């Protein structure tokens, strides 16, 4: 066991609340102008180049990844139990979460630094 389940669930709830708050800001950014206009290439790139917004996106990426893959782990453990299975699910979810965070971070960093 990597961590007590009660601690994991506190992290699950904390990441959920944080993600809701940041998602609202993320959506509000689309509402600052016409929805379709806000999705144009130059506008999206300009969003990435704002350092504050890039930090928000990175935080959102981490919070949703942690929450999402822990949720998936919980669902998979509800369906079936067993020491090997549980270990496999836990490490599999951690690996998938790390890959997704790394991939998303690459996009945020490269777009923020103008490497497009």
């Amino acid at each position, binding site marked *: 066991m990597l961590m007590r389940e009660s601690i994991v669930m506190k992290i699950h709830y904390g990441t*959920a609340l944080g993600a809701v708050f940041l998602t609202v800001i993320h959506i509000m950014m689309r509402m600052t102008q016409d929805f379709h206009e806000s999705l144009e290439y130059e506008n999206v790139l300009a969003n990435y180049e704002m350092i504050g917004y890039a930090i928000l996106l990175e935080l959102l990426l981490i919070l949703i990844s942690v929450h999402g893959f822990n949720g998936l782990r919980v669902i998979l453990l509800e369906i079936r139990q067993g020491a090997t299975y549980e270990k496999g699910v836990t490490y599999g979810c951690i690996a998938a979460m790390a890959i997704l965070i790394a991939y998303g971070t690459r996009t945020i960093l490269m777009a923020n630094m103008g490497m497009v």
Partner: protein
Amino acid sequence: MEKDHKAKEGIKGWINPAKYGKFGIERFAWILMRITGLGLLAYFIGHIYETSNILSGEAAWNSMLELTQTTEGHIFLALVIGMCVFHTGNGIRLMLVQMGYGLGKPARPDYPYKPQSLNMKGKACIYATIGIAALAMWYGVTVMFG
């Protein structure tokens, strides 16, 4: 040899419609929480991949964006909005329940042994969450098609 501890019913237990009649709206909220959670995770992974196209230049970005700028794409995004709002609302309800709010006062278990926790407050919250999710979907549709 490791003992296999399979859940008694597994996925079959999730999708058995007889369970909904027996356990009511709470059971429906339980399954919907899992379906919306899985749906949102799938959308999130797709969204991370979709937005990474910004690195491939304007043409790649526009061609990826075209996929969501269709009627089907807008309906899909409206569903994502609905899933997101329901998952959030029901999640907040569950957090409050875990903190002990809205559970009702403990009472002697008498026939027909209705649990105090499955009360009208909880049911009303679930119905309200479904209603708010539907309203958010409608608002999303008006913005996207507007």
